[in-house]
Structures are given as C-alpha cells and as structure tokens.
C-alpha cells in the first residue's frame, strides 16, 4: 500500500484543486479574523477571544472536503487510471485505503491551514485566549476527528460514484443535508422549557403573560436521543465549536470514532464488490 500512497501523494502535490482549496481556506481565515476585528472595534463592547475566530470557518471544511475529494478521486474514475492500479495487482482494499489515507491527510492539512492562519491572525488582533491550553488541545483533537469523519464520508462517495460530477454533487448535497439536520436539532435543543403565553407591546413597554410549558421544547428521552444524534453528527460538533458551546464535548471524540468507523465501512464494502469499467 505504501507504493500507492507514494503515488497518491505525488499526484496530490500537483493537484491544483487541493492548492486552490488550501489557498481559499487560509485566505478565508485571515479575512474572517480581520472582519471580526473590524466589527469588534465598531459595535461590540464585550471582549473577543482568539477562539471566537479559531473555529469559525471549521464547518466549511465539510464542503471543501466534498469538492476536493470528489474531484481528486473522481479523476481516477473519469480518466480510468484506477485500472492501472488494479491491472498491476493492487487489491481493492489497498486502493481504497491508500486513497482514504491520502485524502484524510490532505483534509487535515486543510484543517491545519485554517487553524494556523485563524490562530495567528486571531492572536494578532485579539490577543486573549478564553480556554485553558489543555481545553484548546482537546478541542483541536475533536476538530481533527471531525475532519477525518468528513473525509471518510467524501471518500466513500467518490469511490462508489464513478462519475466525478455526480460524486461532487452527491457529497455536497449530503453535507448540506447533515448540516441542515444539525442546525434543525440545534434550534430544537435551544428551545426554552417554559415560555410566556403572551407578549404584548404597549406604550409602557413589553408586557409578558404567564409562564407556560413550551410545546416546542424537546424533553425527556427524545431530548437525550436528539442530543446524542446532534453530537454524533460531525456537522453538529462543528456547529457547537463554531458557537463555542462545549457542554457535552467530552463525548465528541468517541462519537466521532464511531461515525468514522461507520463511514469507512459503508464506503469500503460496496467498493470492494463494485464493477469497474
């Protein structure tokens, strides 16, 4: 498999899509930090921390992975070069995992690009960290695991949908769906348990009615299940990091490990049996 990884890395180094993604993500990190800084100067009195910008672009990595991995691996199918690997005796397992590891490494490089550039510019503008060093390291580890999950999902799509264009769209739509699902769950979980039965605005100000149970509130077992799914979804973790919401972060790593395993198995098993033209 090392031969295949060596060949993949060599191709990755020349892949213009990868370098465009890297440039886009790092430039985006710098621009985003600067815009935050400008906003903080004008409107915000509360202090802004480095972490506020550090994880801000993180959810974007799902879509960047979807585009880059589908295009990078899709080339192997569009130009039929995957045959050159099979014909000379590499097994499908070797090919799958060589691509899997290469794309994972590339996705992590993109992540480090975001973290380093966001971190450096964030520190330059805001100077103060909110979290302890160990907490920060833990969250970066969560980001790494989450990125590995995104990458595994995209590799699964790219290795099983043998048309580059369809693979890009399918992976992008899937990411959009799990992002939407995570956003919906975030909204549902943020609903207050009690709410006012009426709110009246008069000349004297806002008049609140009686506190009543909120029908939109998700409670009991349903809440626990929803929280579990929300935390399990890589997009759910990304949204929580983006919102600096770390209440249940201790379970993120093992949930990511489970999702990573599922995504890998679901990507690998069909590829092992699929006919290649």
């Amino acid at each position: 498999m090392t031969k295949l990884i060596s060949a993949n890395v060599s191709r990755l180094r020349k892949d213009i899509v990868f370098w465009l993604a890297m440039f886009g993500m790092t430039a985006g990190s710098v621009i985003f930090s600067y815009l935050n800084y400008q906003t903080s100067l004008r409107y915000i009195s509360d202090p802004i921390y480095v972490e506020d910008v550090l994880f801000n672009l993180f959810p974007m990595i799902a879509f960047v992975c979807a585009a880059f991995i589908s295009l990078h691996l899709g080339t192997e199918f569009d130009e039929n070069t995957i045959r050159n690997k099979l014909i000379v005796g590499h097994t499908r397992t070797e090919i799958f995992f060589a691509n899997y590891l290469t794309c994972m490494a590339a996705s992590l490089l993109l992540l480090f690009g975001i973290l380093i550039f966001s971190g450096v510019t964030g520190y330059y503008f805001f100077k103060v960290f909110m979290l302890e060093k160990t907490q920060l390291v833990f969250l970066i580890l969560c980001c790494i695991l989450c990125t590995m999950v995104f990458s595994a999902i995209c590799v699964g799509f790219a290795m099983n949908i043998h048309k580059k264009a369809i693979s890009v769209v399918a992976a992008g739509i899937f990411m959009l769906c799990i992002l939407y699902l995570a956003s919906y769950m975030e909204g549902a979980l943020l609903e207050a348990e009690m709410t006012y039965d009426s709110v009246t605005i008069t000349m004297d100000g806002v008049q609140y009615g009686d506190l009543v149970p909120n029908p939109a509130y998700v409670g009991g077992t349903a809440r626990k299940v929803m929280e579990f799914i929300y935390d399990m979804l890589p997009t759910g973790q990304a949204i929580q990091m983006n919102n600096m919401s770390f209440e249940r972060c201790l379970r993120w790593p093992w949930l990511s490990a489970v999702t990573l395993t599922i995504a890998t198995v679901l990507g690998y098993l069909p590829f092992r049996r699929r006919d290649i033209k």
Partner: protein
Amino acid sequence: MDYILTTNALGKQYKHFKALNGLTMHVPKGAIYGFVGKNGAGKTTLIRLICGLQEPTEGGFTLYGMNNTDKNIVKARRRMGAVVETPSIYLDMTAEDNLKQQYRILGLPDFTGIDELLKMVGLEHTGKKKAKNFSLGMKQRLGIAIALAGDPDFLVLDEPTNGLDPQGIIEMRDLILKLNREHQITVLISSHILDELSRLATHYGIIDNGRMVKELSATELEAACRKCLHVEVTNTIALARVLDGMGLDYKILSQTEADIFAKVNISQLTMALAKEGCELIAVQERDESLESYFISLVGGGSND
C-alpha cells in the same frame, strides 16, 4: 503447449444480460492472440475480468497457471499490462509524468527506463505537452507505454487501433509486432477490424454472444480459408458446363462472373471454353479473408 491465459466456462452476468456465457479460451505463450467478435460480443467484458476490474459470475480463468480465485492472482497480474478500451492516462500530466506515476504505483526504485519506453512508443519528443493535448494515437501509445512500465510479458490490448488514422494504425501494428518479436511479449488483442488483425495474429479466438465459436492458429485459419479463382467470361452457362465436365467446385455470381474453388490449368480452361464458344475475359486469384471466414462462422448483423 504453455498457456499464459486459459478460461474455463467463464461467465459474466449484468442484471438480466449475459455478457459472457461459458467462454473457454487458451492464449499460448509467445502468441499474438487475435480476439475477434462483433460489438457487444463480450470481448471487453472478458478483458475486464482478466484485468481484475470485475469478477466473473460463473466459471473461472487461470493466469500463468494461477486460478482467479487464488489470492496470489495479484502476483500473476504484476506480470501483465493492459489497455482497456480508452487509454488510462492522467490528462493533466505529461507523458513522462504519467510514466513516473505508474512507476510509483509499481513501486519501482527509480525512473530508469522511462526514456526508452517513450522512445519505443514514439513519444520521446512530447516534452512538457500535457496528455490532454495529445492526438488519439499519441494517447493510445502512451497507454501502451504505461502498460509496459512494469516490464510485463503479457500485454492485453482492447481495440488498440480504434479511432486511429491509417498512419497510426501502421505504427500501432509495427509496435505490437516489435513487442512480440523483440521482447517476447505475448499479446492478447481484441478487435473487430479483421483485416488489421489478420496482419498480426498468430492465433485467433472468434467470439459471439459471449461464447467462443472457434479457436484456431493462423496456419489453421489459412487452411480453412479457401482460395478461389474469380473469373469473368462471356457466358457463365458455358463455363458451368466446362467446370462440371472438369469436376471442379464453383459458384456462379452473375451472367459473366463466377468463383472457382480449385487450382485450375488456365490454358486447359481457356481451350475448353473456346470449344463451347465462350471467351475468358479476366482471371483473378482471391483468398477467402478472415472477414469472410468470420462471417461464415457467426453470420452478419450486430449484437448491439
């Protein structure tokens, strides 16, 4: 006889369509094996199976004596190279970079031999030109160079002359002959351009509807293809009387043309015809080609 590849009742089914139906074939070592069949006969399917791109649904094959179900079949595949349908090349890379990439896939320690390979296929002057800007013939030759990168002794070529211009076809034929004669590479070449194949092949396998119709050597084919004498006369009724008298096999084509399937003494024939008041206008020796032999075996029409 040593066989590089043998298939045993090989079958491949795609949903409700049987692309290969109990195909049995034998590719002898050192041969140029012409694999002949109509479009959709199953030629490419067989090549995909032996290259490991797809798995058979019935039967099996052996490559260098290794069964396809044996885990070590991958080792046998390291001794083969193939170009299946379109050449498998990275369009955004130069010819040299494509070969370097294949060297890495093969795990070769260095890039020694790339210049020779490029020279062998006539792509040594392509420099920094990317493969996407190559002509079809150049792409085909680069595909062959990639297939040759691992120094294989079995080369599988699927319709290598498809879309090539006449010059490209001649170059491709010369290259295949060179590889077979000078490098002792066994070649399995599928084609439906029978005339082209007949200039190369030492053995033939004729396939139709996923089944092997006939396997034979070039010598056997030559014997099977009847030579005939195409004659033009003023009156074929008189000609028929003369040929019946001589006890020869013939076929009347029109009022003035006929084919005689025998060695004929032209002087005797001319004199016999003169006695019947018939003149011999023209005589032409014709071979029954691979094409007509193929048609006689599988009939006309298409599988598409």
